[in-house]
């Protein structure tokens, strides 16, 4: 901190203080203080879309960016533990939670799902080509420090309880938390 200049109550002409700050250094410092940020809203629960989201997230994280993923609606299926039944309070939501299968490995393709056949074929091709799928990419994302936020409103709406989600969800929050993050970010994507 520079010492505060003495207060001058009379109008006085003073020479501007010479600055020794190198603009390049100042810019570097500024960038260091505020890392590049990326936020992704993952609304879709389609395997291809969620995969794209994770590819962008992991890519950004390895470029040194701070990444936040906000999971809502069908996107929540990606962060559900597979095979865990819902413990929602009322039967309607319990039923919904039962019908809407979750788990990173069970997401269907947005096209050519063909009752599971298309998706299985796609996964086979990916495995043969050593391409990471959603579960693997999710692990990498966690490893790289990507923040996961689960939307509490849609959790309730879809009969998904917190205890049926995977470990490592950083926050359970709503739109304000997302917007507070997005406001600071340079890249905001809705998938």
């Amino acid at each position, binding site marked *: 901190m520079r010492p505060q200049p003495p207060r001058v109550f009379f109008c006085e002409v003073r020479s501007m203080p010479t600055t020794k700050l190198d603009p390049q250094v100042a810019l570097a410092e500024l960038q260091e203080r505020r890392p*590049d940020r990326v936020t992704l809203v993952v609304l879709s629960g389609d395997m291809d879309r969620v995969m794209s989201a994770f590819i962008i997230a992991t*890519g950004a994280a390895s470029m040194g960016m701070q990444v936040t993923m906000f999971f809502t609606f069908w996107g929540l299926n990606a962060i559900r533990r597979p095979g865990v039944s819902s413990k929602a309070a009322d039967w309607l939501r319990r039923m919904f939670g039962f019908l809407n299968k979750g788990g990173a490995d069970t997401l269907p393709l947005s096209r050519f799902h063909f009752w599971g056949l298309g998706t299985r074929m796609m996964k086979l091709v990916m495995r043969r080509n050593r391409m990471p799928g959603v579960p693997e990419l999710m692990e990498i994302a966690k490893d790289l420090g990507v923040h996961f936020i689960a939307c509490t409103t849609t959790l309730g709406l879809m009969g998904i309880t917190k205890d049926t989600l995977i470990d490592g969800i950083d926050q359970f929050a709503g739109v304000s938390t997302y917007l507070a993050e997005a406001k600071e970010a340079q890249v905001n994507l809705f998938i």
Partner: protein
Amino acid sequence: MHFDVTLDTLGLFCPMPIIKASKKIKELTVGQVLEVISDDEGIKKDMPAWCETTGHHFLGLEEEQNGGTVHYKTYVKKSK
């Protein structure tokens, strides 16, 4: 080209080469050169872009015919 550490990402697709490179470069000291070998053509553009964002120095790219596939060798100098 001279390098200190090499990273084999053959057979891996985007974003794996970049993720692996970002982890590997942490093991290097400033000034050392990392070689990343990939057969994914995207690395030709991705590696310079990654370097630009992370502040590391992109030294160059070599292409090598290897049977039916091309191996792309990129060289990155750790700068910070």
